[in-house]
C-alpha cells in the first residue's frame, strides 16, 4: 500500500482500440505504467507506436472512434476512464495539464496570449479577470520572458516559435498541476531553444513538485530530462527502467537498434556505419503474431513469431519484454536473415583523401529580399538580408555541412545556388563557370548538374503522377530515348533500394521514408555533380533517417557526387560531412574541416550550438552554454559582429562596432573563425564534450 500511495498515476492493462473503415485495431495493447510523485518519466518510440494515444487516454480524451476494451487509469486512486465529462473538466488544466508538439497550432490565433493563460485561472480558481491576468504575467515573468506585460498583450503570430512554446508552458504550469503530460514539446524547435526549454522544465518541475510524463521520439531529449523511461513499440512497452540503465546498456533489441541508428556529433562516417533497424515500423492495424518486433529483430528465434514474448525483470525495476533478453546479453548470435541493408562496405571509402579540385565556390554571395516594389505597393520596410556576404567552397566528391538556427539564411543560400533565386551580389562558380547571373539566363544544362532533395518528401512529389513519371521526366528532358530512360529509371530505383514494382505506384501509396528515397532517385536521375540536401531527414523517424543517410553515403561513393547538406540537426550534419560551415544571420561565422570546427578553437556561436545539443551519451560530459532569445530579424541586423546581442563571450564595445576579422587558426589555412576574441584565447577553450 505504501508504494501505491506514492504513485500518482497507475495504468493497469490498458487497451485502446480504434474503429476504422478497414476494421478495428489496437493502438495500445495491455500497457502497465506507474508514475511516482515528482518523477519525470520518458516515453520513447517512433511514429505510430501509440504514444500519443497513451497521452490522450490518460487525459480521458480520446477520439470518437476510440474505445477502451480493458484496463484502468488510476489518477490519485480514481479511474479516469470512469469519470464523467464534468469531473474530467475539473481535472483538466488544473490537476493534469498537457503541452503539445506544435505551439503555433495549440494557441488560439485570435486571442491575446495573456488571456489564454488567464482564462484557465478564471475557470478553475474563480479569480477575477484582473487577478488572473496579473498571475499570467507573473508566470511569464517566472519563465524569464523579458517584458512579460508586453508579451501577454500580444497575439500568437507576433511571437517566435520558442516564445509560443513558453506561453504553452505557462498555460500548463499556471495552475500548479500535479501531473503534466508533454507530447514532443521541442520537436521542430532549434537546438538552442530546445535546450532553454528543457532547462526551464527541469527547474519548474522542482519548484512546483510536478510529475511529468514526457513523450518523444528523441532519445537525446529523454536522456536530458527523465528519471525513468519506457520504450514503446506497437502499443506496449518493450523495455522500461531507469534512464541510465536504458541508455547505458539497452537490453531489448529494439532499444539497442534505436540507439545504434542515431548519428551523433562525435561519430564520424569513417568510424562506424549507422545500423538502421531493418524493415518498417509495425503497422498497428496489421500486427504480426507473437512479438511485434520479431520481423525486424536481428536476434529473432523461431518461436518469436509464435508466442507473445514474456516479461523479464532485472535490477532497479527494469522490465524487458523479450524472452531472449538474457540470452542476448550472454552472446546470442544474430540471425542475419533479416539484415536487409547491404553489408558494411569498407568505411575508409568514405574518407576524402588528398586535395580535390573545387566544384562550387561562392564569393561574397548576397541575397536581399524586398528591394523590388510592385505597381501599387511600394515596400517601405527595410530590405531582408537573408544571405549577406557568404564565401565558401566545396571540393568535388565531398560533403559540406551547413548548420545554423532557423532564420539564419541557409535555405535562401541553397535556393540561390540551385537557381531558384537570383543572387543580389557576389559570384558563384560551378566547375569553373560563373553562374551568378540572373537565373533565367542559366543554361538548361546547369539544372541537370545541380539537383535538390527537399525536406518534406510528402510535398515534393506530385500526387497525381506515378513514380515512373516522376523519375522519367528529368531523364527524358536530358534527351535520352524512352527505352533507355525506362531502363535508367529501374536502375535508379534499385540504387535507392526499392524494387521495380514501385514504378507504377502513386506517392500516397508510399511511406515517408520510401518517398524520400524516390526524391533522391529523382535527384540522381540527371547524373548531377552537386546535390543540395535541404534537411532531407528531419521529418523521418530515426531508423529511417539512418538508412537514408547510409543511402546518400553509398550513392556518393558510387557516383562521386558532391553534397551540400543543410540541417539544423547538428548530429546528422556532423556525421556525414567532411567540411562544415556555421551560419548566423546571413553570414558564415566559422568554416573548416569538420574535426576542426567541432573542437576548440570555437566560434562562440558554434560552441553554444554544440552545448545546446541533446545527446544520449552517458559517458560524456557536456559544457552548458545557453543562448538567450531568438535570432534577430534579418531586416534589422545588429552592427559590428552580428552575434554580439546574444554572445556569451562578448568582449565589449569592439564587438558592437567593428565587423569581426577572419582568423585563420592554423598553418593548414583551412579553418576560419570570424571573431574578435584573440586566437590564443579561443584555443584555450574547453571542448564541449569531455569523456568521463
Amino acid at each position, binding site marked *: 500500500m505504501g508504494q501505491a500511495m506514492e504513485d500518482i498515476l497507475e495504468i493497469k492493462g490498458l487497451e485502446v482500440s480504434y474503429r476504422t473503415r478497414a476494421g478495428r485495431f489496437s493502438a495500445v495493447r495491455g500497457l502497465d505504467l506507474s508514475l511516482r510523485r515528482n518523477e519525470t518519466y520518458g516515453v520513447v518510440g517512433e511514429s505510430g507506436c501509440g504514444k500519443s494515444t497513451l497521452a490522450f487516454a490518460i487525459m480521458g480524451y480520446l477520439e470518437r472512434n476510440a474505445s477502451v476494451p480493458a484496463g484502468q487509469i488510476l489518477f490519485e486512486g480514481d479511474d479516469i476512464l470512469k469519470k464523467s465529462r464534468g469531473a474530467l473538466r475539473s*481535472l483538466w488544466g488544473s490537476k493534469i495539464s498537457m503541452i503539445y508538439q506544435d505551439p503555433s497550432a*495549440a494557441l488560439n490565433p485570435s486571442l491575446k496570449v495573456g488571456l489564454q493563460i488567464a482564462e484557465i485561472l478564471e*475557470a478553475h480558481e474563480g479569480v477575477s479577470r484582473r487577478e488572473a491576468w496579473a498571475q499570467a504575467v507573473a508566470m511569464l515573468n517566472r519563465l524569464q520572458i523579458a517584458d512579460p506585460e508586453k508579451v501577454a498583450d500580444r497575439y500568437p*503570430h507576433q511571437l517566435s516559435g520558442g516564445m509560443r512554446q513558453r506561453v504553452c508552458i505557462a498555460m500548463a504550469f499556471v495552475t500548479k498541476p500535479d501531473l503534466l503530460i508533454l507530447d514532443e514539446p521541442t520537436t521542430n524547435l532549434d537546438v538552442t531553444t530546445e535546450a532553454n526549454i528543457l532547462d526551464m522544465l527541469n527547474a519548474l518541475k522542482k519548484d512546483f513538485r510536478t510529475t511529468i510524463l514526457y513523450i518523444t521520439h528523441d532519445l537525446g531529449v529523454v536522456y536530458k530530462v527523465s528519471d525513468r523511461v519506457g520504450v514503446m513499440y506497437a502499443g506496449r512497452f518493450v523495455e522500461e527502467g531507469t534512464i541510465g540503465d536504458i541508455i547505458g546498456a539497452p537490453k531489448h533489441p529494439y532499444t539497442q537498434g534505436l540507439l545504434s541508428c542515431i548519428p551523433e556529433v562525435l561519430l564520424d562516417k569513417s568510424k562506424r556505419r549507422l545500423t538502421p533497424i531493418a524493415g518498417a515500423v509495425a503497422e498497428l492495424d496489421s500486427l504480426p503474431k507473437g512479438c511485434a518486433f520479431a520481423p525486424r529483430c536481428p536476434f529473432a528465434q523461431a518461436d518469436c513469431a509464435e508466442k507473445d514474448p514474456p516479461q523479464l525483470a532485472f535490477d532497479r525495476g527494469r522490465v524487458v519484454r523479450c524472452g531472449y533478453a538474457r540470452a542476448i546479453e550472454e552472446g546470442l548470435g544474430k540471425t542475419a536473415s533479416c539484415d536487409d541493408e547491404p553489408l558494411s562496405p569498407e568505411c575508409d571509402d568514405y574518407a576524402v583523401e588528398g586535395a580535390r579540385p573545387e566544384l562550387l565556390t561562392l564569393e561574397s554571395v548576397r541575397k536581399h529580399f524586398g528591394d523590388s516594389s510592385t505597381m501599387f505597393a511600394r515596400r517601405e520596410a527595410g530590405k531582408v538580408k537573408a544571405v549577406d556576404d557568404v564565401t565558401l567552397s566545396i571540393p568535388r566528391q565531398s560533403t559540406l555541412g551547413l548548420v545554423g538556427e532557423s532564420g539564419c539564411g541557409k535555405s535562401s543560400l541553397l535556393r540561390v545556388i540551385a537557381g531558384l533565386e537570383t543572387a543580389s551580389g557576389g559570384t558563384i562558380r560551378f566547375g569553373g563557370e560563373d553562374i551568378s547571373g540572373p537565373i533565367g539566363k542559366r543554361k538548361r544544362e546547369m539544372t541537370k548538374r545541380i539537383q535538390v532533395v527537399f525536406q518534406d518528401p510528402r510535398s515534393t512529389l506530385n500526387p497525381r503522377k506515378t513514380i515512373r513519371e516522376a523519375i522519367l521526366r528529368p531523364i527524358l528532358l536530358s534527351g535520352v530515348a524512352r527505352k533507355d530512360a525506362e531502363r535508367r529509371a529501374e536502375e535508379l530505383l534499385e540504387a535507392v533500394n526499392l524494387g521495380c514494382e514501385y514504378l507504377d505506384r502513386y506517392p500516397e501509396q508510399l511511406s515517408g521514408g520510401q518517398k524520400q528515397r524516390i526524391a533522391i532517385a529523382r535527384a540522381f536521375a540527371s547524373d548531377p555533380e552537386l546535390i543540395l540536401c535541404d534537411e532531407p531527414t528531419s521529418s523521418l523517424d530515426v531508423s529511417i533517417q539512418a538508412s537514408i543517410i547510409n543511402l546518400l553515403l553509398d550513392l556518393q561513393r558510387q557516383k562521386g557526387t558532391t553534397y551540400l547538406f543543410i540541417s539544423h540537426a547538428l548530429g546528422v550534419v556532423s556525421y556525414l560531412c567532411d567540411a562544415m560551415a556555421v551560419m548566423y544571420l546571413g553570414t558564415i561565422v566559422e568554416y573548416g574541416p569538420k574535426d576542426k570546427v567541432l573542437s576548440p578553437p570555437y566560434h562562440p556561436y558554434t560552441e553554444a550550438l554544440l552545448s545546446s545539443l541533446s545527446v544520449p551519451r552517458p559517458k560524456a560530459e557536456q559544457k552548458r552554454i545557453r543562448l538567450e532569445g531568438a535570432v534577430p530579424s534579418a531586416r534589422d541586423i545588429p552592427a559590428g559582429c552580428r552575434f554580439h546581442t546574444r554572445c556569451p563571450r562578448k568582449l565589449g564595445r569592439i564587438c558592437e562596432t567593428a565587423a569581426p576579422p577572419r582568423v585563420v587558426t592554423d598553418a593548414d589555412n583551412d579553418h576560419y573563425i570570424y571573431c574578435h576574441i584573440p586566437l590564443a584565447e579561443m584555443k584555450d577553450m574547453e571542448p564541449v564534450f569531455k569523456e568521463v
Partner: protein
Amino acid sequence: MARYLARRLGLILVSLFFASVIIFLITEIIPGDVAQVILGQNATPDTLAALRERLGLNNPPELRFLKWIGGVLTGHLGESLSMQGVQIGELISRRGLNSLFLAAASTIILVPLSLALGVIAGLNERKWPDTLISTLSLIAISLPEFISGTFLMLIFSVMLHWLPAASSIDSSRSLFSQIPLLVLPVITVSLVLLGYVARMVRASVIDASRSTYARTAVLKGLPPFLVTTRHILKNALLPSVTIIAMNIGWLFGGIIIVESVFGFPGLGGLVLFAIQQRDLPLIEDVVLVMAAAYLVLNLLADMVYAALNPRIRY
C-alpha cells in the same frame, strides 16, 4: 490604414474605368437599334436616319464613349433614349433606392439567420439539427430564384391570399408603409444565399472545432460555452465575413431576376427594360452603378475583416 484605403479607392477607380470600357464594348455589340424600337416596324428609312442623327447614334464610337465618360465624371448621366425627357440620374437614384432597400432588407435577414443556422449545424455535426439544416440549405441552393419566387407566390398569394403577388410599389408613398409588398421578394432573394452561406459557415465551424487550439481549450478545462464562443466561433466566423461579403455582391445578380418575377421597380427591372428597348445610355449607366456598388461593398467587407482579424494590419 489611410494609405491602404487611398490605394484601394484608387484601385476601385481603375477597375471602374476598365469596367466602363467593357460595358461600352458590349453595348456596341448588342444587335438591334433604338431608333427602330422607338419608331416601330412602319418607320421609313428617312425618319430612322433622322432620328439616329438626332440621338447622336451616327457619331464614331470613340466620341460616344468619351461623351458618356465625360458625362459620368461631371455627374451628368445623360438622357434616356427610349423615354423622352427622362433624366437617367434621377431614374437610377429613385429605382436604386428601391433596390438598395430590397438588398438591405435581405441582408439584414440573411446574415444573422445564415450564421445561426451554420453555427447550429456545425456544432452538431452529423446529428439531426445538422442533417436537417444541411438538407434544407441544399434544396434552397438548388432552386433558382425564378422557381422559388414563383412557388412562394403561388402558395402565399394565390392559394393563401396572405401577401400580394406583384410588388408594384407606389413611389408617392414611403417604402415602410408598403412592407407587405416586400416580404416575398426579400425571402426569395435571401433563400439561395441563405443556404449557401449557412453551408460555408458550417464548414468553417467544423474546421475550427477540430483544430488543435480548440482541443487545447477543452483540455484546459474551460466551460463548454467558453470553448464554443471564445475559441471556436471567434475563429470560425472570420472567414464567414468574406464569404458573406462576396455573396452580397452576388445578391445584386439575384435581384435582377427577382425584381422581374415580382414586378418590383428596382434597378434590376430597369436594366432589363433598358436592354429590351436597346436604350444604350441607360444600360451603360445602370451596369456601371451596379459595378461600383459591388466594388465598394467588397472594400467594406475587407475593412470589417481587418478589424476582426488581429493578424491583418494595413
